[in-house]
C-alpha cells in the first residue's frame, strides 16, 4: 500500500512550546487513519502541519519534512495556498460562511479559482453534497444561509466545501465532537464511502470512533508518536505499554 503523506523528523513549535516532537509517520493512501491520544498530546497540531495550517498562528514554527506523494510541502518553492487545495481540512466546530448560501459555501473554493460557468458550479454542488451525504436534505434549499441548517448538517456542508476543490487528502480535526450521536454516525458512514477516492486522516479523542472507523490508528502522547499500526492490532494487542494503558482507560 502506498503512502500518501509521510513525515520525517517533524517538529512543531508554538513559540517556545514544543508541541510535536520528531515525528515520523506514514499515512497510507485511500484509507482512514485515526490519530488518538489524551488532550494536549499534539494530535491536532500534527495534522495541521500536514496542510500548512499550523504556521498561520503567530509565532508558530515547523521543522522537518512533510511529503505529499513524495514532495515536501514545506519545500522552498511550495506555496501553502496550493498545498491547502490538495489537502483539505474540516474543523472541530462547523464553520460555514454565515453570509453565504449553502450553494455559495460549497463553491467558494471554485469561485476563488475563477470558475464562473454555472453549469460546472451546479454539477460541483450536487457532486460534493452527495459525497457529503447532504444532498437529499438540502437540495431544495440551496439558497438558504449556510448557518440555517443543523450542526450536523453544517459539518457535512463543511465537508462538501472541502471536497469541492478536489483535494487528494482530507484531514478532519475532531469533526464530531460538537455533534450528537446521530449526526456523528452519519459522518462516520460517509467517511467509509469517501476512502475509495481520498486519503483520510481523522483526529479523535473518542477511541470507539477510531475503532469503528479507522483502518490504521496512531497513538500520540506528549508530542511523540508512541505507536502506529492496523487499528485492530492497536486496540487488541498493542506493542507499547503506554498504548495499552491509554486504550484501557488508565489515563487520558
Amino acid at each position, binding site marked *: 500500500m502506498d503512502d500518501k503523506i509521510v513525515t520525517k523528523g517533524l517538529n512543531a513549535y508554538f513559540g517556545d512550546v514544543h508541541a510535536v516532537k520528531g515525528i515520523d509517520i506514514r499515512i497510507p493512501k485511500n484509507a482512514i487513519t485515526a490519530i488518538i491520544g489524551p488532550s494536549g498530546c499534539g494530535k491536532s497540531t500534527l495534522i495541521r502541519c500536514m496542510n500548512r495550517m499550523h504556521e498561520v498562528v503567530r509565532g508558530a514554527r515547523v521543522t522537518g519534512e512533510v511529503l505529499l506523494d513524495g514532495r515536501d510541502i514545506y519545500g522552498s518553492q511550495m506555496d501553502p495556498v496550493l498545498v491547502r487545495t490538495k489537502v483539505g481540512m474540516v474543523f472541530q466546530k462547523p464553520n460555514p460562511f454565515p453570509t453565504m448560501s449553502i450553494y455559495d459555501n460549497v463553491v467558494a473554493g471554485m469561485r*476563488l*479559482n475563477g470558475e464562473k460557468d454555472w453549469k460546472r458550479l451546479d454539477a460541483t454542488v450536487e457532486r460534493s453534497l452527495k459525497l457529503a451525504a447532504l444532498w437529499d436534505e438540502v437540495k431544495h434549499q440551496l439558497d438558504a444561509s449556510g448557518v440555517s441548517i443543523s450542526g450536523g448538517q453544517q459539518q457535512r456542508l463543511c465537508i462538501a466545501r472541502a471536497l469541492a476543490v478536489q483535494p487528494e487528502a482530507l484531514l478532519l480535526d475532531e469533526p464530531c465532537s460538537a455533534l450528537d450521536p446521530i449526526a456523528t454516525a452519519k459522518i462516520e458512514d460517509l467517511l467509509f464511502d469517501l476512502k475509495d477516492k481520498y486519503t483520510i486522516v481523522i483526529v479523535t479523542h473518542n477511541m470507539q470512533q477510531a475503532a469503528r472507523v479507522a483502518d490504521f490508528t496512531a497513538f500520540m502522547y506528549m508530542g511523540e508518536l508512541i505507536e502506529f499500526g492496523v487499528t485492530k492490532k492497536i486496540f487488541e494487542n498493542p506493542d507499547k505499554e503506554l498504548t495499552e494503558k491509554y486504550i484501557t482507560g488508565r489515563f487520558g
Partner: protein
Amino acid sequence: MNTYEYRKLKNTLASGLALACVILALIPLVYILAGVVVKGAPALSWEFLTNRTVGTGEPGEGIGNAIVGTLLLVFYASMIGLPVGILTGIYVSEYGNNKFGTAVRFFNDVLANFPSIVVGLLAYALVVAYLNVGFSLIAGSVALSIIMIPIVANTTEEALRMVPNSLREGALALGVARWRTVLKVMLVSGRAGIVTGALLAIARIAGETAPLLLTAFYSSYWSFSPTEPIASLPLTIFRNYNSPSEVLLQQAWGAALVLIIIVLTLNIGVRLFMRQKTKKSKAVRMRWMTRLSRRD
C-alpha cells in the same frame, strides 16, 4: 498569466494597498505635528508665554492670558463635569440594571453626540441669555462640562464594569454597606480607568473651540472674573489664523504648539499608563497561554 498567478498578484497588490492607506493617513499627522513645531517654536519665549494678547499686532504680544484662560476653563468645567460624570457612571454601572438606567445611558449617548457647536448654542441659551450672565468664563465652563459629562460617564461605567463581580460580592458578604462597597470598588480597582477617562476628557475639552466661540468669547486682558469673557488657546488660534499681521499669525502658531503639547502629553501619557497596567494583567497573560495550548 494564469488564474493562480493572477490571484497571487491581487494578494500582493491588496497588501500593498492596505499599507499605502496607513501611510497616507499618517502623512497628515506627521505633517501637522511637524508644521506646528516648526512654525510655532520660533514664537516661544518666556515673554511670549507671559505677556497678554493685545490684538493689535505690535511686537510684544504673548499668550499668557490665553494659557491661563484655558486652564481656568478646564478647571471649572472639571469641577462640574467630573463629579456629575463619575456619579452618573457609577449609577449606570452599579444601580442601573433597570429601565431608568437604560434611559440614562441612552441620554448620555445623545449628549455625547451633540455637535460641539450645538452644545455652545445650548450653553449660550442657558447661561449667556437666560441667566443673563453674558459671555463669560462660567458660560464657557458650562459648555465644556456638557461635553465632558458623557465622556467621563462612559469611561467610568466601563472602568467599573471591568471590575470582577467577585470583589463586590465578597465585600457585601462580609456585611460591608453597599455604598461603602461601591466607593471601595471605585477607588481601588476602578481608579485607573476613571482617572484615564477624566484625563482624556480634559484633553478633549482643552482643544474645543466652537462652544467657546458662543460662550466665553474672548478677552485680551488679565482679568479672570467668572462673569467676564476670557481668552483661551483655541480661540487665540481661531482669531489670528488668517490675520495679515505676522505677529498675530505667530501668536496663532505659538498657541497651537502649546495646545498640542498639552493635548498630546495627556493622550500619550494616558495610553502609556494604560499599557503599563495591562502588561501586568494576569488575565492577558492567561489568555495568551490558553491560546497557545488550545490546539490539542
